[in-house]
């Protein structure tokens, strides 16, 4: 079974920042970014990004280089991102809401990092680093020596534009690279399919490390619209809702859990800022549609809810579904819809043969959105990027590890993972990665992490700990783990067990633990 996306021709150099530059040339005085009272026009943002691109090039960081960006949301973040792209390099988001220990581990996964852009409030998270750390504020006077014109670096659709961290399957996070052509195709598809335009102002509400945040950051600049950024390291619902009320924001991209939060906020306090939006694009975890339906049916609600599916390895979004077409009861699981332009969804069995219509298979993605793979990838995960033959032609394809089927309406439905990976509040997590961090804590002999469902319906992690001595105190273990892992990766519950049962292969038997200790 193959779901085929519409074939749409792309320009000969499908490069995202060229689209931004065209808007800057056509409408230089349009506002590109607003953040905490600061704003930059398209011309100002373009000039500052050009100067930073020239700076990178004089340091020898041009085409093919990788630049780490560890910044809070700010106009400078867009200067760093666009400047990096204009230099022909790729950027790597380093989320300042992560603990320093985690950022150090992630930095170790990026081969050949050139430089890190930080600020006085984030530099301490990445220093000491093996590479130069620069601060745009501190560099400001020096940057004025560089020309405001584009460095005109040749960039092709096959060059890498960004690389984001994602879970592996063996306890080590991976950094997966996205190509310009895939990113251009994604933004062009959303723009064309949903009629986005120079008035489609956007508010970023997701953490910088997520792949969806890269789309959210560039989407308005691709359309000639204004980007609104929150001057907050952590998602702030009160601030977001206030900004939605104050500004003519039309589009929000977020994880489903953030969407519930915003909808609950509006429902609890009254207001119509969300219902007045044009679009909310969301996904990244199984949808609890019942949490949205009452709000969605409110009279006068003109916001289109786009339930989307995708993986970081294939440029973030692969399919999209207008939730207005969802009839609860018809399906248990809300569909994620049809493929992006120039993207195909294959449903394959374990021998890589297509399954029959309506049957479950592994969701595999081919086409323009397939990324450049894992940087420095030698692990077993790299084998997920493979080739299949379709109509006698070889096609590059990525095996997502997600299970799904195509329903009678021709929409994709995602049924879950084929392995132990799990999504918590939109973040894809490899339980082995958490087990490894637990295993490094003093007093832990061995640990196993399993997935459970909280009473609220949300997915949560439960850690089983075999202590080396006395039983460990839950709050103490949690506090220590918070020094090593992002908050979404820290289990909700910790249970001491006398012994972690092992499977015949000698691995922790997660199924046996769940069966014995969880309902």
């Amino acid at each position, binding site marked *: 079974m193959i779901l085929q996306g519409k074939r749409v021709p792309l320009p000969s150099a499908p490069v995202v920042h060229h689209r931004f530059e065209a808007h800057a040339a056509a409408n230089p005085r349009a506002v590109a970014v607003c953040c905490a009272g600061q704003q930059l026009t398209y011309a100002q943002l373009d000039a500052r990004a050009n100067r930073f691109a020239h700076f990178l090039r004089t340091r020898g960081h041009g085409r093919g280089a990788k630049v780490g960006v560890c910044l809070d949301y700010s106009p400078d973040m867009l200067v760093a991102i666009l400047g990096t792209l204009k230099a022909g390099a790729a950027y790597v988001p380093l989320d300042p809401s992560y603990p320093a220990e985690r950022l150090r581990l992630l930095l170790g996964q990026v081969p050949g990092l050139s430089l890190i852009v930080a600020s006085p409030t984030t530099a301490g998270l990445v220093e000491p680093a093996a590479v130069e750390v620069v601060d745009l504020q501190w560099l400001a006077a020096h940057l004025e020596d560089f020309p405001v014109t584009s460095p005109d670096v040749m960039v092709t659709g096959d060059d890498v534009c960004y690389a984001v961290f994602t879970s592996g399957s063996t306890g080590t996070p991976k950094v997966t690279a996205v190509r310009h052509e895939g990113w251009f195709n994604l933004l062009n598809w959303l723009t064309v399919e949903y009629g986005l335009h120079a008035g489609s102002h956007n508010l970023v509400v997701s953490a910088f490390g997520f792949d969806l945040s890269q789309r959210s950051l560039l989407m308005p600049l691709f359309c000639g619209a204004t980007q609104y950024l929150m001057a*907050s390291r952590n998602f*702030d619902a*009160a601030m977001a809702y206030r900004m939605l009320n104050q500004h003519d924001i039309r589009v929000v991209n977020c994880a489903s859990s953030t969407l519930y*939060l915003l909808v609950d906020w509006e429902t609890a*306090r009254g207001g119509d800022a969300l219902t007045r939006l044009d679009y909310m694009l969301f996904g990244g975890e199984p949808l609890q549609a019942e949490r949205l339906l009452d709000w969605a049916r409110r009279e006068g609600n003109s916001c289109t809810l786009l339930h989307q599916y995708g993986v970081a390895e294939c440029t973030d979004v692969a399919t999209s579904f207008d939730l207005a077409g969802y009839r609860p009861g018809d399906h248990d699981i809300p569909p994620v819809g049809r493929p992006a332009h120039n993207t195909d969804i294959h449903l394959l069995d374990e021998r890589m043969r297509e399954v029959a219509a309506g049957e479950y298979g592994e969701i595999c993605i081919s086409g323009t959105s397939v990324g450049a793979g894992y940087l420095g990838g030698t692990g077993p995960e790299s084998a997920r990027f493979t080739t299949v033959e379709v109509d006698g032609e070889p096609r590059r394809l990525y095996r997502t590890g997600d299970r799904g089927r195509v329903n009678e309406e021709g929409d994709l439905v995602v049924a879950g993972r084929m392995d132990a990976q799990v999504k918590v509040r939109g973040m894809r997590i490899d339980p082995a990665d958490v087990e490894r961090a637990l295993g490094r804590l003093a007093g832990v002999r061995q640990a196993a992490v399993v997935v459970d469902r909280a009473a609220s319906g949300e997915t949560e992690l439960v850690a089983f700990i075999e202590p080396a001595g006395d039983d460990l105190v839950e709050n103490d273990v*949690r*506090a220590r783990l918070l020094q090593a892992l992002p908050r979404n990766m820290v289990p909700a519950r910790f249970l001491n067990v006398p012994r972690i049962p092992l499977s015949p292969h000698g691995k922790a038997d997660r199924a046996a633990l769940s069966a014995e200790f969880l309902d």
Partner: protein
Amino acid sequence: MIADSVRAIWCRELQRDDISVDDNFFALGGQSLIMAKIQGEFIEELGIEVPMDQLFLNPTVASISAYIESLGTVTR
């Protein structure tokens, strides 16, 4: 006392009654979605909007209460 109101809100949202003023929110199992609810209840019950970044920087009842008092704008 602000701290009493703050503690009552924390106990409600974390669904436990054994919270001391120096317990760390995250060590108690709190996460961002619960913190967002607490932010909302501060608005409703204390009449003050505390920025999320401040809630994260002050993860104990004692420190966030001190922060709120330092603003000096609470009237009830």
